């Protein structure tokens, strides 16, 4: 076979010394490359290299998938990689654009919605313009799961993309103090999170963050998972470029529970007794830090208390849904409203805006039509931010 001649009829004689030399050189090279890698720490730079916004268009929402092989999409923890794959990295801010960042959870990201049915897609489709003639361009920076620190981290990173305004969806589920550091994106961006916590004196228990990486963690071997994920996301970029598909849209799903047990407890939070939800249990300081971060860059922020499912079945006098007992959610709304008033924030409370029968699989997810209805409600408020 001609193609293997170089190997089976070599010009070099493969002696034992040759084999030993090859093994030694390979080992040395391997160690050397890893050492250079440890010193250079190129993972962030590698993550910035992307087929998105080049070979294929940028994604309209962050890469995220529960089942990557089904949806040709992948969750990665690197902010650099997430943003490099997103359309916001695709072009410079031009003068006639009013660039709006949309922050929030899976509802904002568009769970069970196609990427042309999300808040950002509806708002962009409206063709809205500011009073001075700039075209409103909304970027979907929502990311599952509810977590206000994760939103702050994304906002912090997104500031380099020259936004003009921020719309931030929040809900009680993303506000619990003790959940803030468990989000995968938070865990993957330890150093940046620590900086945000230190700069804003946030009352979060940083022992919940992973330990500082060891030298081995910083080698190619130590970062093989991240490198493989980066490569895989690039391959999925081809599928994205061909199909414009990034999320499953199951035909059947279980709607939110209508009937509740006779309990007023908050799920997984047995330590919080009825009537005991106070501001010190919630990450309002993180929310404030995020808003302050935006305002320090002269960005107006519109805070939205997002719509929730309100059941009407058994024990609905005690609970709105399986996430929220009435007492807890009502007191959260009251606290958030007071905070917004105290700080003179732009705040809109849409908690009961969506009819109960339009929610899909979760008390915070609703259908495409209602998503656009919420978006249309927000458009004039966003335009107002520009003035």
């Amino acid at each position, binding site marked *: *076979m*001609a*193609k*293997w001649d170089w190997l089976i009829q*070599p010009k070099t*004689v*493969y002696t034992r010394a040759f084999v030993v030399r*090859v093994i030694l050189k390979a080992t040395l090279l391997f160690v050397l490359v890893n050492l250079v890698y440890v010193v250079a720490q190129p993972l962030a730079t590698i993550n910035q290299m992307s087929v998105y916004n080049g070979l294929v268009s940028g994604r309209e929402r962050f890469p995220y998938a529960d089942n990557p092989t089904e949806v040709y999409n992948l969750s990665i923890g690197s902010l650099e990689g997430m943003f490099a794959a997103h359309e916001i990295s695709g072009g410079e801010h031009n003068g006639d654009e009013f660039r709006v960042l949309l922050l929030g959870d899976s509802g904002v990201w568009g769970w069970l919605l196609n990427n042309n049915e999300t808040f950002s897609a509806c708002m962009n489709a409206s063709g809205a313009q500011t009073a001075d003639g700039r075209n409103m361009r909304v970027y979907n920076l929502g990311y599952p799961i509810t977590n206000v620190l994760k939103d702050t981290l994304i906002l912090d990173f997104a500031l380099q993309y020259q936004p003009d305004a921020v719309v931030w969806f929040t809900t009680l589920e993303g506000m619990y103090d003790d959940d803030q550091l468990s989000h995968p994106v938070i865990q993957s961006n330890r150093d940046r999170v620590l900086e945000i916590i230190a700069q804003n004196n946030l009352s979060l228990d940083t022992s919940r963050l992973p330990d500082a990486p060891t030298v081995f963690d910083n080698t190619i071997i130590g970062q093989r998972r991240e490198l493989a994920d980066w490569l895989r996301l690039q391959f999925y970029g081809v*599928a994205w470029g061909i*199909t414009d598909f990034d999320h499953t849209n199951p035909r059947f799903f279980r709607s939110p529970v209508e009937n509740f047990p006779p309990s007023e407890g908050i799920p997984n939070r047995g330590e919080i007794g009825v009537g005991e939800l106070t501001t010190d249990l919630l990450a309002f300081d993180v929310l404030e830090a995020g808003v302050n971060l935006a305002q320090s860059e002269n960005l107006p922020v519109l805070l939205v208390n997002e719509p929730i499912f309100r059941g009407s079945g058994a024990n609905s006098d005690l609970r709105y849904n399986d996430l929220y007992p009435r007492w807890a959610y009502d007191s959260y709304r009251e606290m958030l409203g007071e905070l917004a008033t105290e700080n003179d924030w732009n705040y809109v409370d849409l908690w009961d805006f969506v009819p109960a029968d339009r929610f899909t699989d979760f008390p915070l997810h609703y259908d495409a039509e209602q998503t656009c209805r919420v978006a249309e409600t927000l458009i004039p408020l966003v335009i107002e931010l520009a003035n």
Partner: protein
Amino acid sequence: MDLIHILVLALASLPFMWLIPATLRPTGLFVGSLFVIAWILGDGGLTQLDVLLLFSTIGLTVLVWWLIQPVSNTPTEPTYRTFALIGGVVALVWGGYALSSDAASFQIFLVLIVLSVTGGASLSHFFHERTDSSLFHQIALFVIYLIVVILVVIKLPDLARLSGYALTWDADSLATSSPFVWIGFSYIAFRLIGLLFDFRAGRIPKTGLSLQDTITYVLFFPAFTAGPIDRAQRFVPELQAAKPLDSARLVEGGTRIAVGVFKKFVVANSLALIAMNPRLIDLTENTTGLWILLYLYAFQIFFDFSGYSDVAIGLGRLYGITLPENFDRPYTQANIQQFWQRWHITLSTWFRVYYFTPLSRFFITRKNKPPQYVIILISQVTTMILIGLWHGITWNFLLWGLWHGAGLFAHKMLADNTKGWTKRVNANVWSSRVMYVGSVLATFHFVALGWVFFALPTVSDSLTMFSRLFGG
């Protein structure tokens, strides 16, 4: 074989080749093959069916060996030993299974080993009582049919499910999609059928093949799961004169394995993420996208198959055996005939030797022989259909075979009728270069379009894909 199998087998070659004397290496490869196959079959937990399939494979191979022996062959010491070793391995594998599933105690296990070894050795006498060669030719034909029937059964999901149930009486197996996966049997079957055809055609060496060599040939572990399909007449002398693991073979084998692992586990597996499949086709709305999916699949399947072959050849070299090449730049060939001389070479060679040539000869030697083009048409189309069905018994594999058979026939007719024109084109350097590049591109696209049948599950999916590829 996964990465762990490959790594362990590659590393194990070092102590095997350096510590075991050359005279014992064929025996070592024989025993090693049996154990490695049990390991591969039982990856993730040996089941009753795995044990049964291993024993059936060994039993079938022993039967074929017995059939193809020269008349009046007398039992030899190595045959006793081989039977005893088979008994020992069978006992160890079954005992391991029985111990792990609490079906037997350790004492019973030990007794079983002793009984199997001695029983196996005694069994060797039984297999030498034969004299009538013509009767054995008939039995050989029957066994060929039997192997073909087994192949058909395991490649038809409904039959496979029923067979799995019949073999294990495990009702759960009826509920699963395809419980009866006889790993490697497609290759084993062709090696066994090849031996039987060779026996009927008088191509087996006069001295016969030893049981040990026959089993090692059929079950040689590097080529067990994905070929190449070697021929016994080539393999057995290789085995008997197995080369030592010197530095040259270490480099050759190691490099070949590294290349194969890269092709299969890096390139092919990455392309597989986004290559043509029914779901991606459904999601793709533009024609360009569909062509990209098709190209990706064409390269994925090449890197997958040829990567596995490289690993097998590399492992073979480490253990002193030179296995035949299986892929040789198939996508750079200028016509479909050349493609088939470079793609899955050992499979197409097998069909050429055992089916195409005998069939063509049958037609040619008939008194009222049909026109030559009819002979070519029937021989090529049926050969390619059988190659298609070897991959799986579905309408799509049949159509894939038909596609290639028709392509080979069309090429033959075209080449025969355009010899003068081709000669004139090739007389000029530039026109011959343009002709070559155009031919390579045309051949590649013909093959790539054929993969539509190969990759998609139904005829309707394939026809829809064809229609959409051409703007429909």
